[in-house]
């Protein structure tokens, strides 16, 4: 695969992560436009969220390019393997990320007498730690998935001949 094609894969992967990260905002915005409580029309928060999503997208695209390069160097592995790891990472990321507002709700909002504004530091902490934590967990899951396939043999000799691989398919 040419470096240009790898770059294209990386861009697609990054764009996917970006969309995955921001599409729920569209739902929130739609609700906000209808007068619901939870609109994110505060630009400072929207700006931070979008900047985070762009950063994560760039990281994901870069990692995809690296993974494709490594997969190409591994006999028997194809471009589907990095994409499989990517899909796994996306799934894990989404599940972990869903815990963030659930945690915020559980820790900060179950008592109606408590002000959210007075504990904004805890809200920020939960948001940042939750998002970074979710990204790290997703990265580890994807890395673990792909790493098992890329693990070098201690002897430097492939222990699984191609014909065996074919028979396992």
């Amino acid at each position: 695969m040419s470096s240009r094609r790898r770059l294209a894969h990386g861009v697609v992967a990054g764009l996917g992560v970006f969309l995955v990260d921001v599409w729920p905002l569209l739902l929130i915005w739609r609700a906000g436009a209808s007068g619901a409580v939870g609109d994110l029309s505060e630009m400072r928060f929207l700006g931070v969220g979008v900047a985070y999503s762009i950063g994560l997208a760039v990281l994901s695209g870069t990692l995809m390019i690296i993974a494709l390069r490594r997969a190409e160097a591994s006999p028997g592995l194809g471009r589907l393997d990095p994409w499989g790891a990517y899909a796994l990472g996306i799934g894990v990321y989404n599940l972990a990320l869903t815990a963030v507002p659930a945690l915020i709700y559980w820790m900060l909002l179950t008592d109606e007498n408590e002000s959210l504004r007075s504990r904004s530091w805890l809200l920020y902490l939960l948001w940042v730690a939750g998002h970074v934590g979710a990204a790290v967990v997703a990265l580890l899951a994807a890395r673990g998935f792909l790493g098992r396939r890329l693990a070098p043999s201690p002897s430097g000799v492939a222990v699984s001949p191609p014909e065996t691989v074919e028979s396992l398919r």
Partner: protein
Amino acid sequence: MGASSDVPTRVPDGAAFSRRGMLGLVGGGLLTVLAGGSVRAFLYERLRWGEDFFPGTPPDIVLERDAWATTGESITFAVLGDNGTGGRNQMDVARQMARTYQATPYGLVLLAGDISYYGSIDDRWDEVFVEPYRPLIDAGVEWELAIGNHELSEKKSDDAAAEIDAQLRRFGKPGTYYTARHGPMEVFVLDSTIPLSTGEGGPEQLAWLESALAASDARWKVGLMHQPPYSSGNHGSHLEVRDAVQPLFARYGVDIAFTGHDHHYERTTAQDGVVWIVSGAGAKLTRVDGADFTAHAESTLQFMLVRIDGDAMDVRAITTDGTVIDQVTLRARSAS
């Protein structure tokens, strides 16, 4: 077979990822994207951002002072409930109240309780009252106040009594239950935060209410209290108020009663002649389901604008953008 030592190889059970496996993972990933994203959006919507997290901007509107005309035959007033957060939602409702005054001046606001969440009224006076309602305050609007449960719920009993005293002092009211005459109507303000049938002072309040209702010669009788006897919202119907107050209101010709507590708007059909309103979405929102007694219900930020003219009362629920979501015209029970 062989490979150089720097070339990664596969583990014994490894295999190039199959298309079926790939499709499974992509499908699973897509599913979590859709499900997780929807759940996140659902939860983020309910994080009460506008209630108090975002402070909002106080309305910057100058209103003509004493622009209303209250006579023995007519009056226009507003009703607001559960407004004391100091957040953006409260400011949005307050701004629309000021705009409404510009078009239809009114000289009275009935407050249905919970005027100061998250702290005492003395600490939060400017934030929850002066800043949002400065245009109305400067215009000389009067206020009537029913005590809400959040004035009590976070405080020890001694502090609760002090908080109630502070609120009554701030608004210059004689007690937690009283009557006030405004033009052709008499407002019966009740303290529904105590058990009316059995609680300390409850039976005394009911006895006072009955004598006050019996003595009233007002063409329009209007109730004001915090807990609603008819609500299909979060807290639901306050059955003790229904059992204790509704029969008296029905017997003595009360036309309409305003409440809060649940954070939505709801109007009942006439219950033995009495129409009950939940106007508790002055800053917060919770769900409303509707019930067999419901004539109209919505969970949206709102306040009420009421116009009495002779034997007719025009009742409107107004949202933050000025939309009238419900309107009904009542005829005075005293006229029939």
